[in-house]
């Protein structure tokens, strides 16, 4: 928590500094608050002892931003707190707390921040800057705030160049004893060791080049540091030993936007002393737009997922196909539905999902989510533990 208090110091310093400036009159404040009530119901009997079926939960997301210098300088904060039946899912985080300055063709950020890389929908393999807040969502799209210094240099002809200095590693969250979507042995995130002797304080770096020309959008990235995914190994007695390895990961993301077609490719090569592998996600998205003349859009998605790690792939997507459909009504309530399924090409394992959302009034939203694990192969190293963890989730949010 040392790091968090030093950021609080930093923010008060910058606040003082702003008021010392002449641009004082142009400072704008913005405060937002989201309160979320959530209910998750796992309708099958639990596989492991202690696991619950019903998970009522509460989420709080406050956001605050301070802007000056015509918006070219700002301080941004986004906090998060969740209260849940599972003690490990009850957690808080500083998603963002950073100072940012932009001038002409460069931008600089300092603090805890979230950065997203990639183009595909079913899996996000290139995206590596932030640790996954794995207890939050099954799709892994919720992330923990990452301490960083980020410098971006933008050129008109050669695209943008991002340089990241990442001084601190954050450990992945895991479900507790009462939680679902876990292994038979409850993993305490603090029990996971590091390959680096500097542990979480290993000084990591990353680089990304992003450019577009006509219908092509391309990103090339490299990360050198402690990986975000723990590596699981077994000793002769069958005990799980998990640690965070030091990795070099090179990533490529490419999208071709041609009429209503989006062609997508993400690919990584990861090297560590104990592991080398290649993975890719490739696919397309096609949207039939304004079908009824009232704004109804139906998109169809298809992606192929490959991971050389085979059954040791933590996400269990080693040779799979994803099919999905995105339905957007484009109505005043922003009603949208995403349905999909991932099927393993080498076994019977399938995961089906449905996500739907809409707005009520001006300040309420409702979301429904379902994940169904079907015919999970008992030989699946990771996924077999989740075979009874199909669930329904409903959440209602109020925005202030």
């Amino acid at each position, binding site marked *: 928590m040392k790091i968090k208090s030093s950021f609080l110091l930093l923010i008060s310093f910058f606040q003082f500094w702003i008021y010392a400036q002449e641009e004082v009159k142009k400072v704008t404040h913005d405060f*937002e608050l*989201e309160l979320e009530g959530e209910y998750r119901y796992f309708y099958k009997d639990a596989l492991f002892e202690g696991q619950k079926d019903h998970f009522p939960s509460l989420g709080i997301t406050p956001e605050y*931003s301070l802007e000056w210098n*015509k*918006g070219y300088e*700002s301080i*941004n904060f986004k906090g998060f707190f969740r209260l849940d039946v599972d003690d490990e899912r009850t957690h808080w985080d500083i998603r963002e707390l950073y100072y*940012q300055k*932009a001038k*002409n*063709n460069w*931008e600089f950020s300092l603090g805890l921040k*979230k*950065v*997203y890389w*990639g*183009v595909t929908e079913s899996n996000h393999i290139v995206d590596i800057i932030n640790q996954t807040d794995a207890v939050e969502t099954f799709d892994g*799209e919720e992330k923990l705030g990452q301490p960083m210094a980020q410098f*971006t240099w*933008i050129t*008109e002809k050669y695209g*943008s160049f991002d340089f990241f200095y990442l001084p601190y590693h954050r450990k992945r969250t895991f479900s507790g004893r009462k939680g679902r979507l876990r292994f038979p042995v409850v993993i305490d995130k603090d029990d996971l060791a590091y390959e680096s002797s500097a542990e979480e304080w290993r000084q990591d770096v990353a680089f990304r080049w*992003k450019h*577009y020309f*006509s219908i092509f*959008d391309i990103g090339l990235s490299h990360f050198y540091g402690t990986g975000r995914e723990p590596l699981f190994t077994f000793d002769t007695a069958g005990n799980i030993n998990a640690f965070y390895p030091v990795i070099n990961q090179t990533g490529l993301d490419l*999208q071709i*936007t041609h*009429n*209503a*077609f*989006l062609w997508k490719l993400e690919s990584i090569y990861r090297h560590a002393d104990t592991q080398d592998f290649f993975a890719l996600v490739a696919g397309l998205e096609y*949207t039939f*737009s*304004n079908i009824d*003349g*009232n*704004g109804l*859009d139906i998109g169809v998605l298809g992606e192929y997922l490959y991971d050389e790690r085979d059954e040791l792939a933590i996400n269990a997507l080693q040779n799979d196909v994803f099919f999905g459909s995105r339905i957007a009504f*484009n*109505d*005043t*309530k*922003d009603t949208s539905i995403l349905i999909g399924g991932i099927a393993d090409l080498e076994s019977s394992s399938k995961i089906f999902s449905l996500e739907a959302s809409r*707005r009520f009034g*001006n*300040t309420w*939203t409702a979301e429904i989510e379902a994940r169904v694990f079907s015919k999970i192969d008992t030989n699946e190293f990771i996924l077999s533990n989740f075979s009874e963890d199909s669930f329904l989730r409903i959440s209602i*949010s109020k*925005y*202030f």
Partner: protein
Amino acid sequence: MKKLILVGIALLSITTITAQSAEERGLQIANEADKADQGFNSSIVNLKMTLKNKNGQTSERLLITRTLEQSDDGDKSMIVFNSPKDVKGTSTLTFTHKIGSDDQWLFLPSIKRVKRISSNNKSGPFVGSEFAYEDLSSQEVEKYAYKFLEEKGNLLVVEQDPVDPKSGYTRRIVTYNKDKAYRLEKVEFYDRKNSLLKTLTYSDYKLYKGKFWRALTMNMVNHQSNKETQLKFTDYNFESELSEDDFTQVALKRAGK
């Protein structure tokens, strides 16, 4: 007799001139309107969008639009949503092109993702409103074929036929005001079945920098669904001196946050 023939020839030539020039005059008016609005460089404006359904129930969206003028291609624009609050920060960056499809990126603030999106969907509604994407994109002369219809006092009425087959319209009937730098007063939209779909009226015009007319109110009525969308513009800023650096994917993320 000779006179009569001469008059006849003169009449004939007048009619051929007008017959030939309905297209030319239409194009000429569009060019005049385009020229009159050249040189604004950049602008920032706040926009309140009020959506009204057929029962009179309303909902609102607040957004900020930044525009950067381009001399040899379509304009660049960035739209940032401020409300409803669940979509606050959602932003789009659009590079319009005089010829061919526009380039467009969407920023989703919840996951900080910038996504290149297809600009194929021209006829679909913008955020549930009565404005289609093509109604709000930069109006480039090259996007239509023109036909001058009539002159009513200071008003010039021109038919515009979209060049792009993906457009939701067969034609638009556009009324220009030639005494006010060819500003638009009214646009009538005819759907693909050639029946009247919508009428857009411009009002509360204000002159900026002594040259640029901007309507502070735009009202779109859909005659087929009886729904309406009103746009109210406030705080037009032509002094912001935005540059190319403010219209990049990096700037899009910064604007949406």
